[in-house]
């Protein structure tokens, strides 16, 4: 017995020595807690209940996508263990769940946690712990701040970049525009408004005739629209979430106000906004996007869209395919898989951030043709490109170049 032990011990020592001496040849597997030879633990926090529960679909889509990856053999032989908790969009609860994920479940990283206030609540904690807070699901501009928060990274084009693109378009094509702005009175609305004003620069004060804000709790925004109309503006920047966007488009048609209408991409879904508002009322609206709209007929035979449909058929058949959140969750989960693949056998916090910060021209099936994911150690905004589009008939017609409005946090 003891002889065998001894021999085994010697063998182990020899192997260890070999491993140390041969250095790179054996490319040591390196792990932080949350990763092993067989498993990668990924944490996630979503509002499955509460006021923002509509976004819970994103978490469900991601879970389905990771199931698909696992069914196909996992990432470099490791299965993803996706642990997703509910925070009901309440920041104190988010802190509790994040700590549970990091300290109790011991996840390797937290991925795509949703909402600006919830992510703000855990940002400092995650950076103190040096655990990656990757691809957060919010369009706020402040996530692109690698200097102060090297462990936090955004994902989608931020709100300010988008409104800067509209502002530049207006300055170029309608330099004498009289602009009316309607925005939701929260972090999202104000971020858009700030980007828009920054984009207009010194002309903001003279060009913007009127700014109106509404509360999410208001049942209807009709009175705001009438007020904007009476200001005599000929350009309308519509910073509203889907329900209100549909109301605004409808009301505009009712009162016969026909400004040049810019609609934020949050509400550019054909299925959930433009159809309810009436396609005839939505003609010539300008918006922008980076994702393919699944309800848009032009993508019917697109390979990326076909792959998406096959994935949903098999792993998430009950998904509502006109919900843009499903496409969003699918794309960001693909981004996550890309980073983990790139990490190889070095699954440490540091290497994950390193790989996440060195994505080059990654194209994903759900992104518009020409839009690419790019990051660098000084650029923590993976998606920063958008394309303008105009609504014609029953579909968006993209026009102009792929635009970038990169803004730091």
């Amino acid at each position: 017995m003891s002889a065998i032990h001894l021999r085994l011990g010697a063998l182990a020592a020899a192997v260890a020595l070999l491993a140390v001496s041969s250095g790179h040849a054996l490319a040591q597997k390196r792990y932080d807690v949350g990763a092993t030879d067989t498993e990668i633990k990924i944490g996630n926090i979503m509002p499955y209940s509460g006021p923002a529960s509509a976004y819970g679909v994103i978490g469900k889509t991601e879970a389905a996508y990771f199931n698909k990856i696992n069914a196909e053999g996992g990432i470099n032989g490791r299965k993803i263990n996706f642990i997703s908790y509910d925070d009901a969009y309440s920041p104190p609860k988010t802190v509790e769940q994040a700590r549970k994920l990091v300290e109790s479940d011991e996840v390797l990283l937290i991925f795509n946690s949703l909402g600006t206030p919830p992510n703000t609540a855990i940002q400092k904690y995650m950076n103190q712990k040096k655990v990656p807070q990757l691809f957060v699901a919010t369009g706020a501009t402040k996530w692109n701040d690698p200097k102060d928060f090297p462990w936090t990274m955004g994902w989608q084009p931020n709100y300010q970049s988008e409104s800067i693109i509209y502002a530049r378009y207006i300055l170029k094509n309608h330099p004498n525009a009289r602009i009316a702005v309607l925005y939701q009175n929260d972090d999202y609305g104000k971020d858009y408004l700030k980007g828009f004003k920054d984009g207009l620069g010194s002309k903001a004060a003279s060009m913007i005739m009127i700014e109106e804000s509404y509360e999410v709790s208001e049942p209807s925004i009709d009175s705001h629209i009438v007020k904007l109309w009476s200001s005599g503006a000929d350009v309308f920047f519509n910073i509203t979430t889907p329900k209100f966007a549909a109301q605004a488009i409808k009301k505009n048609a009712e009162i016969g106000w026909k400004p040049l209408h810019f609609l934020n991409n949050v509400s550019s879904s054909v299925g959930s906004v433009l159809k309810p508002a009436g396609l005839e009322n939505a003609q010539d609206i300008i918006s922008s996007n980076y994702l393919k709209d699944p309800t848009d007929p032009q993508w019917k035979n697109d390979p990326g869209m076909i792959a998406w449909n096959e994935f949903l058929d098999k792993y998430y058949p009950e998904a509502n395919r006109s919900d843009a959140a499903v496409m969003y969750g699918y794309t960001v989960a693909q981004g996550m898989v890309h980073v983990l693949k790139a990490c190889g056998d070095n699954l440490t916090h540091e290497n994950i951030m390193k790989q996440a910060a060195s994505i080059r021209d990654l194209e994903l099936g759900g992104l518009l043709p020409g839009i690419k994911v790019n990051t660098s150690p000084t650029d923590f905004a993976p998606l920063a490109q958008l394309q303008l589009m105009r609504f014609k008939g029953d579909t968006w017609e993209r026009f102009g170049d792929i635009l970038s409005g990169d803004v730091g946090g």
Partner: protein
Amino acid sequence: MSAAEEVVTEAPAVEAVPKRAMTLGYGTSLVVLAALILTPLFVKNFIIFQMTMLLIYGLAVLALNILTGGSGQFSLGQSAFYAIGAYTTAILMEHFNVNYALTLPVAGVICFAAGFLFGQPALRLSGVYLALATFALATAMPQLLKLGFFEHWTGGVQGLVVTKPDAPFGLPLSQDMWLYYFTLAITIGIYIASVNLLRSRSGRAFMAIRDNEIAASAMGVDVSLYKTLAFGVSAGITGVAGGLGAIAVQFVAPDGYTITLAISLFLGMVVGGVGWLPGSIVGSAFIIFVPNIAEGISKGLSGAVFGVLLFLVIFLVPHGARQVALIAQQLAAKLKKN
């Protein structure tokens, strides 16, 4: 006047002598205290954090218990006072660099004043009408915090990030553990003060008002003064809890203090047993842990599972933890006799 009265008089399990029934016996208290002091030494930081939140919500439930269980008034607006306390602490710490320990009495005083002032008009209301008035306060608060006028101080919708304090005097404690013992000390202090308050002349006045307002005023109790006083004390304690909550969570934002919080606290009070102060901790445990359990059972239906669990509690032990404690006590007495 209402459910509080019914709750108190309906069942023999909670009959009379509220003065003594409000607390635990000395022996039990010491056991609970020892458990609270020793447990953190053996668990992970995350559990310590959860225990800190348990004490903090426990304080807030206790505050509501003084108001409802003590003076018989309802409030669905505790989240508003909790928010004021949290923001007071956060603003003092981050904008004025005040020591965290000093911000708590300030939060308490400001909330006492706010509660006292709110109590003045609220006096004209009673029962469900008072509940509605406080409900309005809770709904208004998150939006008030977002107002552009205060934005320079409150950080608007983005909220404020609060720095977590280190243990003082170079004590070899982690931040979490220090904060836990700090919170525990404050909780014990407030608990003892509350028990004494309810046993004092003022406490008897509260309970006289709760049991019969007319009789109380006939006995010379200044009904309006004591009603507003109860409101003020309750709000003040809630404010301290809010301040502690801000330090523990390290972040304040309007979304953290919605009407859901107020309802949770109300729920905690009912589950813990209306008017039974030690039940506050049990109620607090219910509102922190049961949603997690519900989520563990079913993610998509967590709300429904939570509802079922809550229903079971209300159905099986309508007087909450207090009833469980009494049953346990009776059993123990029986065993002793045998």
